[in-house]
């Protein structure tokens, strides 16, 4: 497991264990090993590793996971503060005309 960990106690990830059916989809899609299923029900194991990508929420068939998802990118935050449109982020979008955006 990679040891990178960002700020503590800040992510918005929430899990409704009463609603969880233990299907394991959240664990399959999580790229940061945040969740686990110790006994048939999902559990937030390593909260501070969450990057709020939203994959678990999107793939939970019963809506038991909630997170305010987004990209952890300062340039994107600045762009939205300045009211810039386009939402280009994280990659070089060389196919489109709105220039590459690296963030």
């Amino acid at each position: 497991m990679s040891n990178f960990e960002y700020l503590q106690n800040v992510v918005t990830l929430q899990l409704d264990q009463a609603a969880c059916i233990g299907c394991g989809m959240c664990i399959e899609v999580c790229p940061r090993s945040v969740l686990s299923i110790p006994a048939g029900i999902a559990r937030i194991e390593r909260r501070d590793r969450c990057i709020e990508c939203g994959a678990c929420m999107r793939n939970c068939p019963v809506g038991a996971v909630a997170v305010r998802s987004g990209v952890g990118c300062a340039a994107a935050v600045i762009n939205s503060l300045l009211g810039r449109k386009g939402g280009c982020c994280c990659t070089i979008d060389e196919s489109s005309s709105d220039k590459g955006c690296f963030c």
Partner: protein
Amino acid sequence: MGYVVDPGLYALGQPNKKSPILVTANYKLSFDKLRERLTGRDFWILVVDTKGVNVWCAAGKGSFGTEELVRRIAAARLTEVVNHRTIILPQLAGPGVAAHLVKQLSGFNVRYGPIRAADLIEYLDAGMKASPSMREESFSLAERIVLVPVELVAALKAAFFIIVALFFTAGLGAEGHYWQSTLAKGPAAAAAIGLALLAGTVAVPVLLPCIPGRAFTAKGILVGLAASFLFLVLTGTFNEQAMNILEKSAWILIITAATAYLAMNFTGASTFTSLSGVKKEMRWGLPVEIAGAVAGIVLLIASRLAF
């Protein structure tokens, strides 16, 4: 240009009705990576239209989403092409695709494969089972170094005019000839910004796990102070009269603020930051960076007027 693959169904090798179906973005690099890793085997590859954007970013933006995938499945007549009902998606498509909805709308079961195409064969041979390491996003030294040129060039583009402006105003206010004093002071001004660029876009990414602190801005401040120290040593001004205390302080503030800003911007390229976290650090980071830069410029002007 030429980074886009036409969306649709592709055959790799000699696939038949039982061959696995892999789904990917129509970013040429994603598609080529996938093909490269699968040579010698038979597959169907379904390319969805992500406007040439890679899997992770397209999933985040929603263009690699449930709707697009379901539309492509229908357009490619997958139900007639194969007699199984399973498609394998890259795990990083997860933020955009809802597996249960795809099943509902198209009849196909979504299986999330490994993050890296390099692990695909192993995943398939294990009966579509991913080991924990296949499910984890990494951020190794090599992966960080690859990003350095991208970060450096982007920052250099923005900093070019700052360097030019600082160089040609370096001689203003000094006694004697403008050009003489510009040539005497200009190089140090350019070097200060150049050092900040290197500190923020090379040192920070490369040394990232070794720099104390969690917030990228905090890491940037530390590296920026180190770069300022290096600057003072390089310009040999510790004991000489070439730079007065005001100017030295000005450069320390400017170099540190610029490095911190560049480090903060590296949050977007990293693989372990969250939006909530970035917003939290920016609430104090951005004002500190702006204040530092403004104070630095005021001191710089003051240092020129003082003589």
